[in-house]
């Protein structure tokens, strides 16, 4: 039985790999459900506060918070949210590709870029590019905590306040559905103006208490909710992407096993036929 033993060991090794990928698929599926719930819960707040901040941008007030003032862009801060673990399909690769395209554009314009990296995959990738990394955090787990995230992003906020960066972007994966995730770039600072068609031309808010105090609170809430939302969404994407990747890995392993089984059966049949022919030949010779 030439080669039959080798084929058998190969089949059993693929079978054990398949068991692992199946288990990972199921774990990812259950984690995805929870991550999705968390994402759905946080979404309305993030969207509404973005709208409010958009309105604040559109107002013509006496006092302007630094986070709402547009400046000429000489230097850009980027917060890149990636996963901590691999085996999740092309999720990180697609995200990094989108970032690289933007980086090239900024380089062509002679704009400096400072990075904040969340997730060890991003850290591993962008460290090689020799770009200034001002802060990073890894191993946040499946339930990112606001306190950890804010500490990391605060470095960029301080740079913004000092005028060292003129724009702050957050790059993360947007959860479209289980099958598709899209890399998305969100401009965090300065805040963007949003749907102003139903607003008057020149107006200002009544502030209660003072504008400075109020806006400070709004801005903190705004940044926190946007960063948290991006991180939570990225976790949901990670789980969905891993589930799909592991499912196709399990399917491929099944196909491979079927093919090898066929080859193994053929090899076994050929060996038996050969033995029989030898016996018959031997008997005829006597």
């Amino acid at each position, binding site marked *: 039985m030439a080669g039959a033993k080798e084929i058998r060991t190969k089949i059993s090794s693929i079978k054990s790999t398949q068991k692992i990928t199946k288990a990972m698929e199921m774990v990812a599926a259950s984690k995805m459900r929870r991550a999705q719930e968390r994402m759905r819960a*946080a979404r*309305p*707040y993030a969207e509404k506060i973005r709208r*409010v901040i958009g309105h604040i941008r559109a*107002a013509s007030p006496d006092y302007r918070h630094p986070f709402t003032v547009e400046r000429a862009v000489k230097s850009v801060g980027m917060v890149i949210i990636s996963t901590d673990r691999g085996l999740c399909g092309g999720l990180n690769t697609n995200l990094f590709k989108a970032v690289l395209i933007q980086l090239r554009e900024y380089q062509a314009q002679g704009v400096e870029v400072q990075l904040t990296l969340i997730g060890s995959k991003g850290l591993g990738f962008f460290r090689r590019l020799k770009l200034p990394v001002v802060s990073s955090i890894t191993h946040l787990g499946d339930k990112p905590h606001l306190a950890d995230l804010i500490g990391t992003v605060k470095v960029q906020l301080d740079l913004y306040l000092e005028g060292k960066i003129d724009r702050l972007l957050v790059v993360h994966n947007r959860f479209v559905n289980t099958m598709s995730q899209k890399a998305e770039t969100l401009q965090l600072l300065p805040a963007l103006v949003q749907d102003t068609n139903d607003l008057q031309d020149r107006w200002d808010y009544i*502030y*209660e208490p003072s504008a400075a105090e*109020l806006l400070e609170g709004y801005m903190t809430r705004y940044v926190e909710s946007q960063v948290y939302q991006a991180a939570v969404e990225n976790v949901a994407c990670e789980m969905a992407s891993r589930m799909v990747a592991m499912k196709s890995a399990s399917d491929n392993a099944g196909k491979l096993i079927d093919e090898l089984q066929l080859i193994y059966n053929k090899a076994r049949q050929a060996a038996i036929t050969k033995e029989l022919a030898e016996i018959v030949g031997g008997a005829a010779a006597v």
Partner: protein
Amino acid sequence: MASSIYVDIVSAEGEIYSGAAAMVFVPAAAGELGIAPRHAPLLTTLKAGEVRVQPAGGGEEQLFWVGGGAIEVQPHLVTVLADTAMRAKDLDEAAALAAKARAEEAIKDRTGAMELAEAQSELLRAAAQIAMINKLRKLKRS
């Protein structure tokens, strides 16, 4: 429509209420605030208390409990950004009483200024919840 104002109440845990209203009452930092359609643009903070929404075109008044937050008013739009919020009927009296007792306990054997401030704000929230539960009960009886 000039006679209604759109209300969105969201908390960090999800969307609580969204719909047109004839009048909205919120616990602003400087006292209770009634907001009618075409109100001037306003930004302020909220303290723990109740938010009342009178739906446009009549209907029963909706009660919500918020544990502080912020509010933005536009002539046609009110956005309540609550730190925590729930529908009044989901309020749990036992949980509120327990929280109040815990906060009072913490104030009694205080160890640090930070903890004291935290306990005091916790106490205020619990007291606001209990006041609202009592009010709800009265409403039901009458």
